[in-house]
């Protein structure tokens, strides 16, 4: 992997993850919230649960997916540089 490919892979990953990020808080947390409220898990209406709990769990998972994916991309870049040497 060249430096350019590395940056491209990075941007692609960012676009995917930020779309999910946006979906989590704007989609489930705000716009779809009233619709989701028609379903419930336990005593929570789903929309309410997403706005006050679920979205936060989603953000945590998202960052760790990013850490994991970036470490893989970074490793590819490193392996490539070592091959050249």
């Amino acid at each position, binding site marked *: 992997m060249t430096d350019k490919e590395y940056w491209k892979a990075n941007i692609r990953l960012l676009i995917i993850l930020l779309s999910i990020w946006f979906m989590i808080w704007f989609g489930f947390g705000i716009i779809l919230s009233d619709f989701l409220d028609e379903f419930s898990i336990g005593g929570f209406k789903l929309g309410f649960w997403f706005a006050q709990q679920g979205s936060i769990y989603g953000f*945590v998972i998202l960052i760790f997916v990013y850490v994991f994916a970036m470490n893989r991309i970074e490793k590819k870049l490193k392996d490539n540089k070592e091959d050249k040497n």
Partner: protein
Amino acid sequence: MSAQALTYLFVGLSFTLYIGIAIWSRAESTNDFYVAGKGVNPVANGMATAADWMSASSFISMAGLISFLGKDGAVYLMGWTGGYVLLALLLAPYLRKFGQYTVPDFIGTRYYSKTARLVAVLCLIFISFTYVAGQMRGVGIVFSRFLEVEINIGVIIGMIVVFFYAVLGGMKGITYTQVAQYCVMIFAYLVPAIFISILITGNPIPQLGFGDTLVNSSTYLLDKLDQLSIDLGFNAYTESTKSNIDIFCITAALMFGTAGLPHVIVRFFTVPKVSDARKSAGYALICIAILYTTAPAVAAFSRVNFIESIQEKSYLDSPDWFKNWENIGLIAWKDKNEDGLINYSVGKAFEEGRPDYLDSRGPQGEREIKNPITKNNDNEVYIDQDIMVLANPEIAKLPAWVMALVAAGGLAAALSTAAGLLLVISSSISHDLLKKTFMPKINEKQELFYARCSAAIAIFIAGLFGIYPPGFVAQVVAFAFGLAASTIFPAIFLGIFFKRLNKEGAIFGMLGGLLFTSSYIIFFKFISPELNNPENWLFGISPEGIGFLGMFVNFVIAVFVSALTAKPPIEVEQMVDKIRLP
């Protein structure tokens, strides 16, 4: 032991711990003082970031705010956690790669301009002092209620402790005390939450408990809360009342603002590697999420407990906490219908905001107030939202040591954030203003000396804010986030992802964002507060959410001005290429 003796013990022990750590981790160089020698383990940095970030308002005020807002409280929960995703993905790793000391450092170097650096310093100082003022008020409240000392003495004690570890230890001392403060704070938040969750629902995990059924009943807690709220004339707790566009903009402004707060960003300068910066943001958010997912549970529990323990009780039989907080000045009761019972319902009990107490007592022994009574509702109770977390253990009748713990936790939250803020203020003065702009000839030893001096002066000013609290603190919090979102975040983000951006674009962008956001907030909060309602807002966006629009103003101006002026020099493009690689 009495509750007060226990509180002295807990607070005293925690303060001794902080000072001990400060002496153990003294800073020897500017590298130590500004970025803790870049040797902080990512897990420790995650905990320190969490303590740095979670202030008196997260610990003391947030759950109270949510318990009065219901579902709409989610703007704070999502807004103050979602920003970490932006921080981890868009800023932290690149800034760590850049490897300098402060946020204005990056802006000054990337935009090859002293003017850009100065604009950044200006925004940073304004944001940070706004924030510090709130922390010192938190310290004052905790001291006056739990230790029964004068607020002023409380603030001075707090100043001395912060002085010790911030001036001696710099970033290094702050980092390790923040790790300890995180542990104190999270323990102090969880213990009462778990207790109350067990008492109300029988479920020991608060995050699950507030979706569970009540003890000895098949009714869900939230259904009961909806019912109670409707009976008193409020909206159902689990339903939203704000418009979607406003909720969207407030949440977004808080997220981009969080990602642009200098004292949070600078924490990611302290880890050894770029990959550590990413990991560390993840650990930070886990540490934060533990408190942030507990807060809405605490909000729901305390709302139920609060209503049930006072509604239609006679003042004479009302619980001790009600009278204690009345004496502090954060609760007031006016017997409008003269039945001797406390009637709590929707609406303001009296005009003119805060209660203005007379020296006399009413027929039941309640404190009398000067404020004119409102005629259009039956509510008789004024309650300051800030007391919900602090009073919660008392309302739920928990043992005295739990209250002592909460006091120590509240102080840990306020002091850890204050120290982080004071550090970015002092390093931007000694490093960016003096070393890099006005006194380039000073050597490292002198720079370290100036850094310590400016930390001391900043603590002194912060203390003054605590002793003479400016009346506008609550209004200016929107300011801090709005400015961070419309100046610092775009400048750093574009600096990394948009190579063509030159110094003219960045400077005009920051100034444009600053001007737009601050004039909107100043207009609605200070000049014409009577117009501050959805009909007059631009696109229905409240001053709290305007920072998000300000960010776009910044983007548009920056890109447009850049397109009309010369390309940035080749060295700058090379520097951007370099920070993009791990």
